[in-house]
Each structure stands twice: as structure tokens, then as C-alpha cells.
């Protein structure tokens, strides 16, 4: 086998913008294997196996339907309540999983990172892709719900053309979670406090996103504070997701454009910060 000679240097500091993306590409097999490992090890020695992926969204939907829909009587934009919540939960869970898992990537992998070098970016990327598998499985459950309500219950909803934007919405959710997670992970290597913040921070953020209520209701009831919800880049993604599949939700190109811009800025910041920290984090974790 002919192998090209690879010359390398190790230096104290490198350019902030040397993102080493070509290295990440060279390790793409590792990415695939890590995703496989996450998936396989998740259900090994369990009885229900991959069914576990269904249980969490299913029960959350039931509880949300009961508490927010029936008890509190929050509007669901004339959609069947379980369907409305499940759309929000499925999409939100993907983002939240990407964010929380990425944010603890240094702490969780300190053992491996301390012993072997590979482009560290592989780890958060593998988290995002692993969660994508999980998201895909949960999406099937959502489709089953859609079918059930449409055919068995005769509910009225009409998927709109925005369903074509679905891949973009998923990519934006993934990158936003990845970017934010990387920024937080980089900071937690020095300031541990942030890891305490993240778990309940994500929960708070969910209430500032239109998971359990439609944006229209929020604007109507709290006209002064609804900008908080509108500025939240996740809101437009959830709304677009709902608008695409269920035909109800606030969608506009400007709003989606705003989210895309924020996502790109956060992602780039995340990669730069992450790459800067990964060189020395072994000494501080």
C-alpha cells in the first residue's frame, strides 16, 4: 500500500480559525461507529429494546394533554391536543437532547480524551447524529398518531407545503443544539457551575418556546412579553414544523431566516470555542 507522507507539527497555540474540518472528514468512519455504538448499547440487555424510544414522548404527550390541555385549558390552535403536543415534544426533544448531551461532552469523555487523540469535534457530531436516529424513531410514532387522528378520529388538519422545509428545520435544530452545547461544554471545563444550570435551563427554555402553546395565543395574551418568545430561535423552528405537518402555526420566511442567521453565528462561535478548549482541557477537567 502506498501511503503519502504526512508532515505534522504540534505547537503551543494555533490559529483560532483553524477548524480542522479536513481531519474530521478523515475520521468519518469513527463517527459512524460511535453512532452505532450509542444505538446498539442503548437497548442491549433491555426487554423492550428500541421501544424505549417511544415511551418518553408518549407519556409526556399524555401528561401534557391532561395538564395543559384539559386542566389549564390552553389553546392548541384547533388541533387535536395530543397531536399538537406531540409535534412540539418530538421536535423539542431532539434539540434538547443535542444541547444537553453536547454540553457535557468533555466531562463524559474525559477518559477517552485523556488517552487518545482524534478530532474532538467527532464526539459532539456523533451525539447529534445518534440523536437523529432516535428522533427518526420518534417521528414514526408521531406519524402513527397523525394517521390515527386523521383516519380514525376524522380530525381536520391539512399538512402544508412547508413540510418540504422539514429537512432544513431538522438541520437547523441540530446545529443550534450543537453550537449552544459546544459553547457550554467549553465553558464547563473551567466553570463547573454551568453544568448545573443546563438541566433546568433547558426546561425553562422549553416554556419560552411554543411547545405547549401556540405562538398566536402567546401574542394575544401577553403582547408586551411575547417578544421574548419570538426572539427565541427555537420558536420559529417548532412553528414551522407544526405548520408543515399539521397546517397550523406561525410561519414566515423572515422569521426562519432570522433563526438560520442566529444558528450559523452560534455554530461558528461554538466550533471556535470548542477547538480552543479541547487542546488543554485535559489539564483542567
Amino acid at each position, binding site marked *: *500500500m502506498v*501511503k503519502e*507522507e*504526512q*508532515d*505534522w*507539527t*504540534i*505547537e*503551543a*497555540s494555533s490559529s483560532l480559525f483553524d477548524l480542522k474540518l479536513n481531519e474530521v472528514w478523515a*475520521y468519518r*468512519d*469513527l463517527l*459512524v*461507529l*460511535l453512532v*452505532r*455504538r450509542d444505538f*446498539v*448499547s442503548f437497548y*442491549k*440487555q433491555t426487554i423492550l429494546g428500541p421501544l424505549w424510544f417511544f415511551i418518553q414522548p408518549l407519556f409526556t404527550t399524555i401528561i401534557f394533554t391532561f395538564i395543559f390541555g384539559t386542566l389549564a385549558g390552553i389553546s392548541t390552535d384547533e388541533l387535536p391536543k395530543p397531536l399538537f403536543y406531540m409535534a412540539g415534544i418530538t421536535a423539542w426533544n431532539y434539540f434538547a437532547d443535542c444541547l444537553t448531551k453536547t454540553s457535557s461532552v468533555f466531562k463524559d469523555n474525559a*477518559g*477517552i*480524551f*485523556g*488517552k*487518545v*487523540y*482524534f478530532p474532538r469535534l467527532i464526539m459532539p457530531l456523533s451525539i447529534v447524529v445518534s440523536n437523529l436516529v432516535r428522533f427518526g424513531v420518534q417521528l414514526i410514532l408521531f406519524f402513527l398518531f397523525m394517521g390515527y387522528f386523521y383516519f380514525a378520529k376524522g380530525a381536520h388538519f391539512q399538512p402544508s407545503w412547508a413540510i418540504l422545509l422539514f429537512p432544513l428545520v431538522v438541520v437547523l435544530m441540530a446545529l443550534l443544539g450543537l453550537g449552544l452545547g459546544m459553547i457550554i461544554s467549553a465553558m464547563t471545563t*473551567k*466553570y*463547573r457551575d454551568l453544568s448545573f444550570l443546563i438541566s433546568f435551563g433547558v426546561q425553562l427554555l422549553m416554556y419560552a418556546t411554543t411547545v405547549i402553546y401556540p405562538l398566536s395565543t402567546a401574542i394575544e395574551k401577553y403582547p408586551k412579553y411575547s417578544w421574548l418568545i419570538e426572539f427565541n430561535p427555537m420558536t420559529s423552528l417548532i412553528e414551522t414544523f407544526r405548520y408543515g405537518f399539521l397546517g397550523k402555526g406561525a410561519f414566515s420566511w423572515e422569521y426562519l431566516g432570522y433563526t438560520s442567521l442566529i444558528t450559523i453565528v452560534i455554530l461558528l462561535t461554538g466550533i471556535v470555542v470548542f477547538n480552543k478548549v479541547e*487542546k*488543554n482541557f*485535559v*489539564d*483542567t477537567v
Partner: protein
Amino acid sequence: MSKNIAIKVENLSKAYQLGQIGTGTISRDLERWYARIRGKEDPFLRIGESNDQNIKSESNMVWSLKDINFEIEQGDAVGIIGRNGAGKSTLLKILSKVTAPSTGKISGKGRIASLLEVGTGFHPELSGRENIFLNGAILGMRKKEIQRKLDEIVDFAGIERYLDTPVKRYSSGMYVRLAFAVAAHLESEILIVDEVLAVGDAEFQKKCLGKMGEVSKGEGRTVLFVSHNMDAVSALCQKGIVLQNGRKQISSAVEEAINIYQEFSQNEVLLWESTNENHSPRFESVAIDITGNQPYLTLNINARLVSDQKYAPAFITFDIKDDRGKTIIQSMPSATPFIQINQGTANLDLKVELTGLVPGFYSLSPWIGPQNTVTYNRQEDILVFEIAQNPTKNRVFPYHKSDGFISAPTSIQISYS
């Protein structure tokens, strides 16, 4: 870079922060940042000093490595030797890109495979086969490459029957064999190995050493090897680099490097001083050094006793324990109380013959008392010393403590009839 230099290290230094990390770091980070934008040196790095772990200092930055320079030629097998804390592991970590240096530069040619630990990234739930692929990919192999080497790896590890069993059901020996096999079959130009051979049984250790010898001599790959086993180093390596307190002492042919290492690891005087001022009578200080050559080593002990008044005469013992805390040698100059204890200081010089003590780390615990049931003063594990040389010349396979701590000098006469 000249054509046949595989690794070139220039002015390499690495500073570590001691003590608590995370308190006041924001203000420090701001100070650092402010110094940097003015083009000044890092204010916290400047006060660092050499990493002598016996010396306390005011500064909380130490140089784990300081101004290291060396070159390694392609195809060389180089042993890196030094006491615990000399900077060996830091050097390997920087070379394997696990952590970045504070200053300096390393340039090199060819892919590096580093074995700082075996089985990194092994997942207990996955089968042997799945772990081979995962571990190989972590070490930087492409899937195709692993596929091609799969048979060889499985064969070397000897786990064919268990290939599809989760590795959590493996014996620890199988686990280690598999892990080493993956790394050893990585097609890299440079192989870095850190004492992984301390695990596994004697037969497997021989196999590993054999494989590494094959890698460096047969395949012409560059090997960097860190070990406390001097005989393994001398069997495998042609060159040696000796580190002490983060500085490079010498880089030369391996025999010379080992001699130098043994000289200063033996002739170095280790000192302990009491911090308890009240107790009486008590050991005030104990200093030890080791002289002689294996198997005739002598442990020289200088102990100072202080007392505030006259006490009944005492006798003294020095217990030597192994690294698991088991007392293996007791030295007692006399079994009757013979040391007169008066007000003031008594200076005791002892020589303990450590004939044939096998390589390893040992600790010293002195005791003094008037009867075997009455104690004046007992100090546990105050000093740790290392035996680096082998009692038996040219022995390559390791010493296991379960086989005893003394390799007694033995003569033999054989007659055939």
C-alpha cells in the same frame, strides 16, 4: 526538516497549575487576557519553576517539562526513562496530541499511534468484533484497514471463539490482549507506548515485547517506549532519553542512558523531616540513599532523634513495605534496647543490605520504643524509594511480587553423568 528525522522537539515546555483550579479563574483569565493584548508574557506562567516535588514553593505553577530538545530518527526505538513525576507521561501526552504544550514546537513525519492506555473507548456491551472496529477507528484507522487486519488482530489476541461475545464477559487478560492487538496492528510510522505492558501475564508481556521489537526492527517504524522495566527498555531500544524533574538529562545510546538514570536514582538522597514539634522522643528527620550495585544494594539511613529529657533506652526498627502496603522486610539492628535517650539530639547511621530486592517502589516506616509493646514514636511510609536495576543480569521478563521480593544471588554447579 531533514529527510530521516521522524520527530523533532524544540524548546518544549509544559506548565501545570497546582492546587485548586476554578477558584478566581475568571479574574485570572481576564488578567491573562489583558497581559496578552499588551503583548506581555503570561503573568502566571512566569513565576513557574522546576518540578521538584519534594520542594514546597510559593508559586502554584510548575514546569512539568522545561526546554526539552531532541530529535528522533526514523526507525529508532527510543526509551524514555525517568522517575515518577519526571515528565515522561506529559511528554507522551503532548506527542499524542492529547494536551497542547505551553511553549515550543514538535514537528514530525508520519502517522502516530499512541498507546497511553490499552482499550481506550472499549464499550463493555459491544462484542469483541465491534470493539475492534471502534477502538481501531478511535486510534485513527479507516474501516477498510481494520477489515484487512481483522484476522491478524484476532489471531494475535487469541480470542477467536469469543469474537462475538460482549467484552464485559471477557477475562481481564483477554480484554488487554485484544486491546493491545488492535493498537499493535495499526499501520503507523510512529508508535508510542506507555507502560501498557505492566498488565497481562508474563507470557503475553513477552509476546508484546516481541511484537514491539518486530515493529521497530523488522518494519522500520519509530517506537517511543516508556517503562520502568530497564531490561525491557534495553532489550527493545537503541536510544534512551532520561528526564528528571521535567528537564532532559541526556539523550544517548540506551545503555548509557540507563546507567545515568540508575546513578542518580540511587545516589539521590531522599529526606523526610518531622512536622510535629511537640512529641518526645521523636524522629526529627530521616534521610536515605541507596548505594552499591545489584544484587548487593545497601540502603543507607541517617535518622535524627530528639528528646526533651532522659527516657528509658530504646531500640529501633525500620519496616520496608511494598507498594501495596505489605511489610516485606524488617530491619532491626539489635533486639535489646541499646539507644540511650538523653535530652538533645541523637544521630543514627544505619546500613541495611537489600540483597537482590526486585525492582519496584518501596516505602520506609521507622519505629522506636523501649519495649516491643511500648512505642515512643512510629512514622508510617515517610519515604518512598525505587529499585530500578534488576538483581539478575539480562532478565527481560518482569518480576512478579507474588514470586517473592528477593531474587537471591544463587550459585549453581552442574555435573552431568
